[in-house]
Each structure stands twice: as C-alpha cells, then as structure tokens.
C-alpha cells in the first residue's frame, strides 16, 4: 500500500478506505464521472502553434534521472538581479550610488572575476564549489513589459500572448497517467498559476501547518468526511459547481498525505508560514515517494521600490537559508540525484536606483539552478541597456526547457518552440 493510501486508510478507517488502493483514487473516481459531467472537456490541443522565429538549435536532452523532481522557487515581486549577482565592471556603482554593494563585501565565485554574489548569498558559493550551482544572468522573456501582472502571466505560461495554462500545467496535462494524481504538481504557500492545466489537477496548499480537517466534538469524523466527499460526485454540468465539487477529493487526498493532525494547536491567524518551513514540507513530500514531480514554493516581498538594502538582504537571507536547509534534507534522504531546484522571478528591476533608495520594475533578472552541474550563463550587459533596463541575454524559456528535459519532456511540444538548453 502506498504511503498515501496508508495514511488515508488510517484517517478513514471505515469501508471507504478499504477501496482506496492507489494514489489519487478519489480524484480518479471523480474522473470516471467527468465524462458525463464534463468538468474538463478532453482537449487534443495544448495551445501550441509552430513558430520558427526564435528557434534555436535543438539539443538532445540528457537522459533524465529516475523519478525526477523539479522544485521551483518563485521570488514574487521582481527580484533585483543586479544586486543579487553583481557585475564587477565599474559601471555598476555609477548606476547604484546609494544601494550599490561594495565590491569588498561580495562573495566571489571560484574561477570567475566578472561577478560576485550578494553577501547574504554566501552559502551558495558552497554549491558552486561542489559543481551544483548554475547561474543565469540576464534571464527574461522578450516583450514581457514592466507590469507585474503581464510579466507574471508570461513567466507562468511561458508565452507572451494570452495563455491561460501554465507551462508546468501543460506538462502535467501531457504526461498524466491513466490514474490522475493531483499530487504530481503541488504549490505551497499560495496559488500557482504555473500549475494550471487543461485536464490535469494539481494541489495548492496555502499553509501546510494549518492543513487539516476538524469535525465538531462528539461526532463521528469518518462519516462526516465521507458525507463531504459524497457531495462531490457525480459532477454537475455547471462548471462552477463542478469545480467546487472536484476540489473536495483533491483536498482530502492531499490531507491524507500531509496528515498534519496537529490537534490542540491554535495557529496564529496572522502568522506567516516561513519560506524555510514551506521548503521543509517540500523536502518531506519528496521523501514520501508520492510520485510528486513538481513543487512550487513562493517567497514574496521582492517588489523593493524603496529602502531596498535592508529588505533585500533579509529576503535573500531567507531564500538561501531555506534553500540550503532544503538541500541538506534532500541530500540526507538520498534524493539529491533526482532533484533540480530552480528560482524564478517575474522580472528584474531597473538598473538605475530610484530616489527612494529602491528600484522600479525592470526587465532581465537572475535565476539559480541547484542540483546538477556548474555554469554561468548569459550576462548583465550594463553597456547596452534597453530603455534603462538590462538587456535579455537568455530567454527564460531556455531554463524552462532545461527543467522540462529534467522531467523527461516532451519539452518542445510544451513550450511551442525549441529553446536552447543550459545543459
């Protein structure tokens, strides 16, 4: 019995659990009904059109690892790439008189004299030294604009035209098995449009520590949970009602996994789940072998229009603490070979600082890939700014292509084009 069904079995010790023999059974049960109810009209197209304009050389993807996992860390708000990975070319300090980081404080990367890391990111140099860190400078999607929302849409979908699905959602659609498993794609700490697919269902957990089912005292929990589940099928023909129905088995399946019966704990309603905690949950999920393939974790607050220095320092400290702690766990659990962690952010910030010791929305930013090999790709080209922004030197979709290859593809089909891979 898989871990999921074992836990669900423990939760629902009645007859319902006895029939639960595999991952996503409740979702599968619902899917059987969906042909009648049409929650998710079967789709033959993935919104792909064949274009050749930005086509780059196709490379043969390396053989992906067994049971690969991609963890995506979303630095929400637009991370300032230029103060994350600092170019040592003399022009930087002219653009950043107040918030520029002194060269002497930067963390150097062995073998590179052209860049230094923000001092808060010191732990990343260990990853670099162990050949486990790839850095992408100047990552962006052409024409994405400076609006949070337009840029975020482009980053989530991997397309610049209006596309409702996320690039991971399309991968989940293309690769889901005959028994759908909503835990193949999980977002922790908030919604993740990146997971939106046309047919696949994924799981969004806002706060893992509060994720549980409580029933009124003195009542029979199992029968109430079962009654809740039974309201979910068969699916109604109305899409809104059907969506509310299908959320129920998804939630119960995920609860079975998280099993966070932290009874007696009255969580602080205004407490925030820390990024480190969320990534610890991610490491646990990977360890549970639930066939989870993609986990998305958000770290908010990068929209540093003012007083950036201290704020950015704290944000990067949180980022690197969470990531290092996560990687230690993944490593000690023996999963390091199959995990690729990739950071993203909807855009970088303007090269010139604004008058509030902050930076406004810009274009290209930086991405980190941890887990497989070393390299520094692209550039922060301060000599050829475009409207005051760093030019895009690496199409972000090249990093998506790399991650999709890691997952086993079909990469070009999902991105609608063939982008060069980082490795």
């Amino acid at each position: 019995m898989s871990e999921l069904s074992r836990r669900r079995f423990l939760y629902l010790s009645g007859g319902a659990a006895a029939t639960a023999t595999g991952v996503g059974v409740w979702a599968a049960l619902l899917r059987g009904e969906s042909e009648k109810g049409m929650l998710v009209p079967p789709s033959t197209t993935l919104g792909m059109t064949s274009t050749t304009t930005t086509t780059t050389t196709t490379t043969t993807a390396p053989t992906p690892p067994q049971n690969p996992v991609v963890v995506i860390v979303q630095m929400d708000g637009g991370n300032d790439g230029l103060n994350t990975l600092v170019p040592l070319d003399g022009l930087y300090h002219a653009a950043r008189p107040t918030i520029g980081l002194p060269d002497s404080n930067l963390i150097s990367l062995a073998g590179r004299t052209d860049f230094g890391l923000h001092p808060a990111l010191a732990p990343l140099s260990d990853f670099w030294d162990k050949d486990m860190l790839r850095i992408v400078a100047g990552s962006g999607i052409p024409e994405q604009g400076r609006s949070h929302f337009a840029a975020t849409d482009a980053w989530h979908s991997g397309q610049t035209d209006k596309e409702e699905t996320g690039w991971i959602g399309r991968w989940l659609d293309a690769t889901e098995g005959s028994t759908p498993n909503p835990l193949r794609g999980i977002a922790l700490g908030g919604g993740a449009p990146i997971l939106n697919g046309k047919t696949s269902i994924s799981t969004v957990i806002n706060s893992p520590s509060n994720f549980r089912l409580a029933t009124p005292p003195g009542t029979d929990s199992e029968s109430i949970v079962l009654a809740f589940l039974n309201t979910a099928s068969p699916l109604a023909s109305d899409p809104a009602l059907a969506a509310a129905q299908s959320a129920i088995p998804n939630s119960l399946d995920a609860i079975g996994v998280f099993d966070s019966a932290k009874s007696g704990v009255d969580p602080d309603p205004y407490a925030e789940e820390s990024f480190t905690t969320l990534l610890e949950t991610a490491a646990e999920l990977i360890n549970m072998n639930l066939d989870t393939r993609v986990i998305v974790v958000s770290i908010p607050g990068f929209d540093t229009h003012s007083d950036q220095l201290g704020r950015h320092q704290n944000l990067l400290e949180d980022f690197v603490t969470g990531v290092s702690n996560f990687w230690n766990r993944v490593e000690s659990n023996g999963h390091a070979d199959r995990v690729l962690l990739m950071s993203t952010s909807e855009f970088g910030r303007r090269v010139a600082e604004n008058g509030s010791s902050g930076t406004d929305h810009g274009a290209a930013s930086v991405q980190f890939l941890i887990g497989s090999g070393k390299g520094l790709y692209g550039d922060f080209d301060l000599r050829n700014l475009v409207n005051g922004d760093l030019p895009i030197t690496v199409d972000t979709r090249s990093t998506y292509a790399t991650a999709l290859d890691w997952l086993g593809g079909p990469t070009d089909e999902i991105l609608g084009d063939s982008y060069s891979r980082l490795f």
Partner: protein
Amino acid sequence: MVSLMSDQENLFWISNRMGFGLSPSEMELHQDQNFSEFVGKRIDPEKHGLKIPAEPFENAEDFIPADKDASDFKKQERAASLELFDLWLDEMRDTSDPVLEWMTFFWHDHFAVSAREIKSLRAFVRHLRLLRTHARGSYPTMLREVTIDPAMLIFLDGYKNTAKKPNENYGRELLELYSLGIGNYSEDDVMAASRALTGWRVTENGVEFKPRQHDDTPQILLGNSNVHDLDTVMEAVVNHEALPGFISKKLSDAVLGTEIPDAVINEFAAVFANNDLELIPLIEAIVDAGLSMNKRVPIIRHPVSWLLNAEKVTGVKLDVIERANMLSQMNMLPGRPPNVGGFPKTDHYLSASSTAARFSSAGIIVSKTPRESVALQAAKSANWGDLANICGRTNGFNQPTIESLQDLWESSPSSSQGGRVCLAIALSSPDFMVI
C-alpha cells in the same frame, strides 16, 4: 427590467451578488415587497428617502493605540486590527445597506491597500472611510481622493515621490490597475504621471503638498500636454476613453462573472461614461442585465462571502479569533490583500487547503449554532428543501448533496446530532460555495 426568474430567486441573486447573503428573517422581511422597488431601494437608498447607516468604524480611534513608542505597541496594534476587522465584518453581515458594504469591500479589493504593508492602522481606517464614502458615488472623486490618501501614499511610495527623486510605483498602478489597464498607456505616461504627482507628504493628521518637492514641469500624459499637478493628472486620466470600459469590466466581472460578452461590457461603459462616471447608474445597468438574463451562470464565491452568509444562515456568533482563524485558513483576510492586484480570482479559494478550511469552519459554526436556528431545525427534521431554501438555493440542493445529507442523517445516533452534522455538510457543500 424583465426577469424570467421568480422574485425569490432574484432576491437571493442580488443579495448574494451585491451583498453577503440573506438571513431567514431578512428573507421574510423582503419577500412580499414589490421586487423592482426593492432593487431600486437596495442600489440607491438615499434616493428613496432611506437613511444610510452610520459607518462601522466611528469609534475606531478609541481603541487604535496612539503611542507608537509604547513597548507593546505592536501587540496593541495587532489586537486593535483584529477588533477593527471584526467590526467591519459585523457591519457587512448585519447592515441594512448591503450594497454599500459590498461596494466598499469591492473597492478594498480594487485599490488593495494592505494594512500590514502600511503599518498604520489609523491611516487604514481613514482609507476605509474614504472608500465607504465614495463607494457608489463618483469614481473620479474617489480616485482623486485615493491618490492623495495617506494610506495610499504610504502603500505605493507616493510620499517618497519628489522632484529630485521621482518614484513611479503609484504612477504605474494608477494607470494599470486603477483606471486604464495594460495596453492603454506607455512607459513615458507612467513617468509623466509620477512626476506630476510629486510633492505630496504624509503628516500626523493627513497630507500636505510641498511645492518645493514638486516637479511642476509640464508633462505630456496620455496625449495631453501641460499636465503638471494632481488636477491635470486626474483630468487626463478620467477623460481617457479606456477608463469607463476598464472599471465597468471589473465591476461586471465581480457581479456577473467573467463570461460577459464585450458588447455588453461596452453598453455598461457607455452608461458609465454618459453619467459622468457616477457609479449608481453603472451598478443599476449591471444589476438590470443580471436580472434580465434568462440563464444565470453561477460563480464561485470568496471566503468572506461564504463565512458571512454561513453566519447569516445559522445565526451563529463567532468570536474575533475564531473568525480571523477561519478567514486566515481559507486564505482571505480583510485588510490584507496579498499584493497590489488585490485578492486572487475566486477559483483560488477552491485550493486543497481553502477547501479543508471551509469544511473545518463549518464544523465550528454548527457546534455554536443556537438551538432555535431555523436552519438547524430544518436539518434536524431532514427537510432538505427548506434547508436549501434557507441557504439560498431556491431550486434545491444538487442531487449528490441531498443523498449525502440523507445518508448522514440516517446514520446519525440522534436527530439532534444528525441535524448539526448535516448543517455542517450543507454549509461546506459545493452548492453553498457557488452563488
């Protein structure tokens, strides 16, 4: 207005779409009225000689801590913020003017100022008062007031926007989120608006304009030359042809759902534009269109709507912490939109964790529901038709919900316990999540 639906269905429709549901006693109070007269009074009570209820934060200054240097200031302010949001939720639930409270909450989502971000409860209360004052008044007036509102000046860095060091944070969102939408302005417009809005400062009791920090150079904004200050920025923005459509679409999406054809949105926009961007004619047009539809498309409701309607249906009184816990776990705390775009689209609230939190919250609600609650009585006697009606489902619950309720009721040790758990299922059912 010609509606093919029953008056009772329509009553629930407007109460759910521009309000937070109906309690059984409100249902009784309203159902014998002439429906079109009722709608008229709902949307524009003043025109019908009705009094606008006093604002819920009247005495907020009494409990908002003033001494910023006090050692436990943060703790005090947290407690005060919980109390404040609780008062606000009470008013949304109990008000005699639901459209006013619904619109105020709509603008809170629209301007999305976060009490947490601005770190001043005093400024936040002032902001809410402003939204409430103009909630169904003149959009240009509200937009002008919001532009120089202390809370907004803090939230989007306007108070740091000076001639020497312009900050474009507010200028961008003014054009993108509050008036025109992407595609209707350029990066140069963002900068022009930002420069013309330099010089506003937040003071102890409000705002002041500092001419020395203001850049009075004429700018070109949206094709208008000589834009150099608040008034000229506002003139350029509110006269732009994209504004009526942008605001109409946003309000229409919230009331009617997002599937309304562009042609219909354009009609709303025309009404809005022809009435000097006054909101009541726009609201009337949208409600009228909704009531005239021969087939209504249900929409998913957000957690605040769900919780307040559950409170109305059951008559339960929750304490401050219980409410905050429930809303926090369903991921929607009033006063704390997650980003400048406001609260997420409602399908976000069908996440695994929001769904679990809804179920758990329903359990707490029924365990505190008073014995005499008519919803509880209906559940105890397994009268699913009545219970559905009380829950606003005039055509009854969905078949799987009925069967599930019946099974649970039959397997319960007593009708009293069966009533409570069945009420919990009704409240957490998919049926009660769509309006």
